[in-house]
């Protein structure tokens, strides 16, 4: 029987899970927001990874002429998005019930909640699909965005409903729904997804999908060992040897993705790590800051909040700079002050944002220097690696300080690096026990 291994990375912002097989191939990925409840986050991320693994198996079970076809790949990816939409819809309906209960306990006519959801539910399909394959947008954000927009509309129109109270109904309802653990019936959701896609899938392929999903679900799927890492790792009910530091996991994960990696920079939600690796992916030294967390991922979250824009919009906006404003502070709070000050002086928002991104990278460069410098190949991991402005300034400063011979790697899966490392440790633990 094939064994599978799970690595789980409990970050301060997101929790990630990775499942690998005996050949160390990644078969499942799961991600969720940590929602200040590590226990639920672990379960959700784990279940997501398991579902994703079933999709991998399903893909492997597919027969027929289109097997290696790009067109099929696209249909299949679409199927997974629809599958996740069906999960999303289920949650939305549960949120509606919950919100109705909350509204009944408030001064509002519960009908307002019925009205809001009467618009939210039908439009949810389009909203969800517009996100495409971006898995880093969670139920809370997607539903919250729609609810907030509708609440704004309603409160602007009618004096009976004020925005704050309407949002408080959402806030009270979302927490229990997010923390609810629901068993997911894989076949049920596949069928629903196939149905919803309808004509998008030719009839013969629909049957093939149903057959392959049955085969996928029948496959023995045993997680032999699990390794936990990240800030919440001590909360995991794992044996001691199955709890690994995120430094080691990030190192090994980066080595897995790019075996020639010598230096790793990881910018996560609440810290920045500079790691040096040997040829085997073993950490030889690392550096982090103990006294201050300036310049980590939360910094960007704070700036996005200050500007009232989405986190993912920051990088593209900063790239529209025509000049980089000099910003000295990477203290999260001070940079907010500096941002407002510069804007009030008439500086372009794009230029100030560019300056803030550059300041953040400068801080990372100092940490890298303290850890022993940048050596090729250099792998950049963590959620912040998705920010194009950070990457832009990192390249600029790296070339200036270390020359152009450094190869920079950024994996689309970089947010999973710690979890990947964890899964490989899980496999090693199994092999040596």
């Amino acid at each position, binding site marked *: 029987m094939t064994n599978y291994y799970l690595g789980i990375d409990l970050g301060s912002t997101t929790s990630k899970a990775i499942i690998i097989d005996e050949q160390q191939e990644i078969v499942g990925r799961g991600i969720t927001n940590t929602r200040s409840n590590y226990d639920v986050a672990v379960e959700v991320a784990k279940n997501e990874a398991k579902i994703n693994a079933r999709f991998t198996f399903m893909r492997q079970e597919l027969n027929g002429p289109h097997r290696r076809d790009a067109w099929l790949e696209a249909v299949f990816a679409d199927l997974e998005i629809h599958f996740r939409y069906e999960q999303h819809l289920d949650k939305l309906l549960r949120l509606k019930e919950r919100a109705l209960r909350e509204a009944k306990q408030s001064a509002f006519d519960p009908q307002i909640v019925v009205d809001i959801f009467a618009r939210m539910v039908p439009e949810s399909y389009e909203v969800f699909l517009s996100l495409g394959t971006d898995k880093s947008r969670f139920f809370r954000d997607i539903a919250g965005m729609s609810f907030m927009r509708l609440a704004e509309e309603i409160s602007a129109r009618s004096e009976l409903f004020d925005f704050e109270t309407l949002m408080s109904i959402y806030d009270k309802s979302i927490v229990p729904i997010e923390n609810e653990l629901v068993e997911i019936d894989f076949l049920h959701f596949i069928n629903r997804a196939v149905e919803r896609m309808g004509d998008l899938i030719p009839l013969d392929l629909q049957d093939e999908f149903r057959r392959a999903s049955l085969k996928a679900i029948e496959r023995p799927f045993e997680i032999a060992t699990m390794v936990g890492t990240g*800030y919440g790792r*001590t909360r995991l009910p794992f044996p001691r040897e199955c709890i*690994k*530091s*995120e*430094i*080691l996991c990030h190192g090994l994960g980066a080595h897995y993705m790019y075996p020639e990696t010598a230096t790793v920079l990881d910018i996560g939600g609440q*810290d920045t790590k500079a790691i040096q690796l040997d040829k*085997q992916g*073993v*950490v*030889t*030294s*690392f*550096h*982090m*800051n*103990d*006294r201050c967390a300036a310049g980590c991922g939360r910094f960007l979250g704070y700036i996005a909040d200050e500007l009232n824009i989405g986190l993912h919009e920051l990088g593209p906006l900063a790239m529209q700079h025509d000049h980089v404003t000099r910003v000295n502070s990477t203290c999260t709070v001070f940079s907010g002050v500096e941002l407002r000050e510069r804007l009030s002086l008439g500086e372009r928002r794009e230029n100030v944002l560019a300056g803030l991104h550059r300041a953040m990278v400068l801080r990372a460069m100092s940490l890298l220097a*303290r850890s*022993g410098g940048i050596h090729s190949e250099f792998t950049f991991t963590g959620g912040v690696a998705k920010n194009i402005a950070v990457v832009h300034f990192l390249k600029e400063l790296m070339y200036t300080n270390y020359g152009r011979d450094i190869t920079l790697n950024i994996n689309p899966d970089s947010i999973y690096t710690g979890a990947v490392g964890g899964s490989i440790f899980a496999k090693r633990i199994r092999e040596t026990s």
Partner: protein
Amino acid sequence: MSDQPVVQDVVKDESMLIQKKMLDGWYREIGSARESGRPVVYSFVPGNLTEFILSFDCVPVLPEINALHSGMKKMSDGFILEAERRGHSEDVCTYVKCDLGMFLGGNLGPYGKVPPPDLLLLSYTGCFTFLKWFEALKKVYDCPVVMVHTPYQDQGVITSDMVEYLVRQFESDLIPALEKISGKKFDIDRLRSLLQESKRAEDDLVYCFQSGKNIPSPIDGFFAGVYYVGPIFTAFRGTPECTEYYRTVRREIEYRVANKLGPMTPAGTLAEEKFRLVIDGTPNWTDFRDFWKIFYEEGAVFVASTYTKVGGLYDTGFRHDPDQPLKTMAEYCLNVYTNNSLPARTRLMEDYIRDYHADGFVFHSIKSCNSFSAGMLAMMRELEQRTGLPGCFIESDLVDSRYFSYANIKNRVESYLQMVEQKKSDRGAA
């Protein structure tokens, strides 16, 4: 945070109880100095000239020790805030601010009232902060100051010129000042007899620290080490009770070595020694127990440390020599760990790592202390190259709890130890 450690009953050795009695007695002497008519000399731990002070029947008061005890007794944060309220910058050494804050609150220290000094004796000028500290105290107390200027060992050796320079300062400044405040003539034979006791205690102290070479180590040469250096670096060197204390410590350690026992921790004897480490830098005092726990919970033992050499260094064979009282005092004064050049400090760490069979080493960077922290990163990189072992870099402060982040340091240390473990197992497999 939910990471707050649970308070447990603390296990103590007999010697720790003896030390507590000694310290209680010392604090009583300080508290009653005015009534007993004994002059009070404020001085510092590095290069301390205790035998001189005691030979004139003066009572030594060490502001650094007051500060660290204030830290351990959770009083320092209040003192520091008080000093900051009076205009002292956030960047000023927190020992200094703790001391000034204590003064501003009526000089009520961790063990009661501290009398004003009759003399400020600056025994070590390698730390610039010390100079400024006593400048500030001079303004407050308006008393005489003796500043013994200690040349820096930039070549890593003590020359006869340096020694003579110090002896001249003893003769021209220190001895007359002590004679004046005590009303007593300098008695060289009294000094000799004190130095005789010092030497005895020092032999046992050195045995104690070198016992860290055993596997398992019977002591924690850093966390317990700070207790071991307590009497000898403060008010007791040269007294029979000090000699007796170190004899007791030695007996305890001999027993532990014979029975292959690991070191004593606040949670009892360490069951399994998993990591042998060497450390540079001072402890954090406000969270001393939690700091220690981060290590002993992982089975990590500090087999050697440089902080325990900050009063004076015995590793290169130095012992007080009663036959040459002034010269020996000068040599001791010059032989402070932080008075050594960075290459010399690096060599010492390297020797420790090799001779004490260490698996790794830790640098604890202290926000308040440039004497220790400047150059640490360079030393760490150099040692990593020379030994092939990984180093760990952590940051906090002496007595300002705002700079001690338990969760972060724990996370860092755990990561580091797992890295050491991985390297160890790789070496074992190779």
